[in-house]
């Protein structure tokens, strides 16, 4: 079985970002970029399935600018076999990403697609679900545990009320939650090897997908600065403040 795993280049979650001076976007000039942490978990899971003999090949796909090759190389260094970049310099919406991925799936015919549950830059959590619908495949989102036997996937997902267990038939789309695994460090020899693994670059415009944005961003603002908290002396004081100052009870 072949696994397609998706990786996205995002601003490093450890660095501060800021809004551009004209409030039109997030200013990514000089900002350190990294692989989306949930995508890293997806890659780790795919590589583990290959190491367990369940998958035969892991293909890492990224959609974005030329520099997204760096994140594909990260996936290759972790153990993916080859990479595909669909190059597109403009902004991409979840639906466009799902449709472009659909084209790659038709070509590659994977049995399983693994993605992060969301990316830490836009936090949409849409691509996996849209992709499953477009393909008409089973979907298991927010996976915290994944077991495959034969053509069946047993998947545990984290939901508000606790844990839910699903049984899916393959082919399927799975999106990963934080607790699915702890990604490995890429070793030096594997980083070197990753530089020589095949990486195929396709132009987004050549895939027959309409790339026109459907969403227009009107303005980007930073949230209001948080007010400092105060420590109150008693419950009575809290109730009093909630009543008089906040008017919530």
């Amino acid at each position, binding site marked *: 079985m072949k696994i397609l795993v998706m990786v996205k280049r995002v601003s490093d979650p450890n660095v501060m970002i800021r809004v551009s001076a004209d409030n039109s976007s997030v200013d990514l000039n000089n900002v350190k970029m990294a692989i989306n942490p949930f995508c890293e978990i997806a890659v780790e899971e795919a590589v583990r399935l290959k190491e367990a003999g369940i998958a035969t090949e892991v293909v890492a796909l990224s959609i974005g600018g030329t520099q997204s090759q760096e994140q594909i190389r990260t996936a290759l260094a972790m153990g993916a076999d080859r990479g595909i970049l669909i190059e597109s310099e403009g902004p991409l919406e979840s639906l466009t990403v799902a449709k472009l991925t659909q084209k790659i799936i038709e070509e590659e015919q994977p049995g399983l697609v693994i993605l992060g549950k969301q990316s830490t830059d836009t936090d949409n959590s849409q691509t996996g679900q849209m992709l499953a619908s477009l393909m008409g495949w089973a979907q298991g989102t927010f996976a915290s545990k994944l077991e495959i036997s034969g053509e069946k996937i047993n998947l545990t997902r984290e939901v508000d009320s606790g844990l839910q267990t699903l049984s899916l038939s393959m082919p399927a789309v799975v999106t990963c939650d934080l607790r699915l695994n702890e990604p490995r460090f890429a*070793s030096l020899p594997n980083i070197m090897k990753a530089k020589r693994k095949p990486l195929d670059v396709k132009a987004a415009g050549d895939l027959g997908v309409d790339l026109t944005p459907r969403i227009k961003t009107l303005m980007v603002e930073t949230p209001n600065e948080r007010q400092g908290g105060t420590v109150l002396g008693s419950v009575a004081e809290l109730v009093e403040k909630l009543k008089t100052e906040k008017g919530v009870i």
Partner: protein
Amino acid sequence: MRESMEFDVVIVGAGPAGLSTACRLMQQAQQAERDMSVCVVEKGSEVGAHIFSGAVLEPRALTELFPDWEDRGAPLNTPVIGDEIYLFQDAERAKRIPNSFVPKSMHNEGNYVISLGNLTRWLAEQAEGLGVEIFPGFAAAEILYHENGAVKGIATGDMGVSADGSQKGSYMEGMELHAKYTVFSEGCRGHLGKQLLAKYALDDGVDVQHYGIGIKELWDIDPAKHKPGLVVHGAGWPLDKDTNGGSFLYHGENNQVVVGLVVDLSYSNPYLGPFDEFQRMKQHPVFKNTLEGGKRVSYGARAMTKGGLNALPKMCFPGGLLVGCDAGTLNFAKIKGTHTAMKSGMVAAETIFAALQTDDEGGKELNAFTEALNASWLYDELHRSRNFGPAMHKFGTFWGGAFNYVDQNWFKGKLPFTLHDNTPDYAQLKEASECTPIEYPKPDGKISFDKLSSVFLSNTNHEEDQPCHLTLKDESVPVKRNWGLFSGPEARFCPAGVYEFVEDPEKHDMRLQINAQNCLHCKTCDIKDPSQNITWVVPEGTGGPNYPNM
């Protein structure tokens, strides 16, 4: 048994010195049509993440390395348009010094206001284009030696070790990188460079090394106040007459300025806080007028090696070379170290390449490096400025500055005598009882800020569960000696709030709390601890600041 890999040359640290070494090696190899394997390890999460400098760049070395740097898109976008130098008298007043009275070494025609972080990122691209293997996120933790005592290479640190030393699920053993020659370019007070100096007694017979701490912030300012290429330097207030140092404000590109303060670590009052001096400095009208209405983007700090030629150690030893600020090639008279660091790396590369061309198995002591350095413009430059730092230490800012004017402008640095200053910086600290506590003004949250909100802007991050990388030789020293005699200076000289003295209710005494996660890798604690009890070792790879265009 750790895994190992073999290279012709391993370079520790992807800064200007290390990357220049790598590029020059590969250029020569290509010219001679010879295979050459060069590997650079870098502890930062990416190239540039730990790079911290003013910076005004003198492009001399860069032009030698890549004469076509402009076509290659090197990020030198802002030529210096003018210098302003001020003598700050107090919190309100400043005297602009006429250009004709400024030591020539401080003129900046032909130089560029740059982000050194971005320059190293560009250098890394050039190096990779030439075939160099660069590995960010891998810290050189240990020096490896042959049985005959020559350097064999380095080992990268283990990853995935918990605070108690046990292996976590993600554990990955470090790796040995063996090389014919290993080049150490860790920057100021490299933790391996420090070991090499001791093992091979490289600093025997030279003056004691001196250091400064540089603290700076990057600001987006009101476009109406932005003058790309303007370079402002200052001396005097807020530092008192016994404390050397200087302030700077450089107008870069994209409506950004950097504002900073360098404080000589030879200061004597343990109550002094370089961070606090910097914060109050920004309230001076000369700075405040520019910053007002702007927004702070980033913050950072780094120690700098400033002893110059008099303190320059021997830079070769069996199997390796020490280059750049790891050795101390900064030209203090120019307050610039990038071009000299790059030049030292390029000369190192030429020396190593020549050695490898003669069927060299490696591991030799390349004395030719010393000769080649002494014959280069780097030596000439450092020789002319050898008296600059010691004069400031000996005569203070004003008379030292006057001496330097005469020395640099009239005698071009060729006065027939050399000044020395052989007291180590840590030994300059006086006991608290002999000094007056300093009351610093509270930050206003607009121009001046507190430490924690500042450290936040450095994007510093360390894996939480790992052994503390700020090690103490003796656990009792911080409270007994540093707190008892010096009122806990580490809490003040650390620009990141790593060291905190807190009350220990059980023992009814103070206790030193080390917030290692905040560390900016500036190395000031390793240098200035009056008891020399703190040893900075490298944390897990990728840990530390994530500086943008600093």
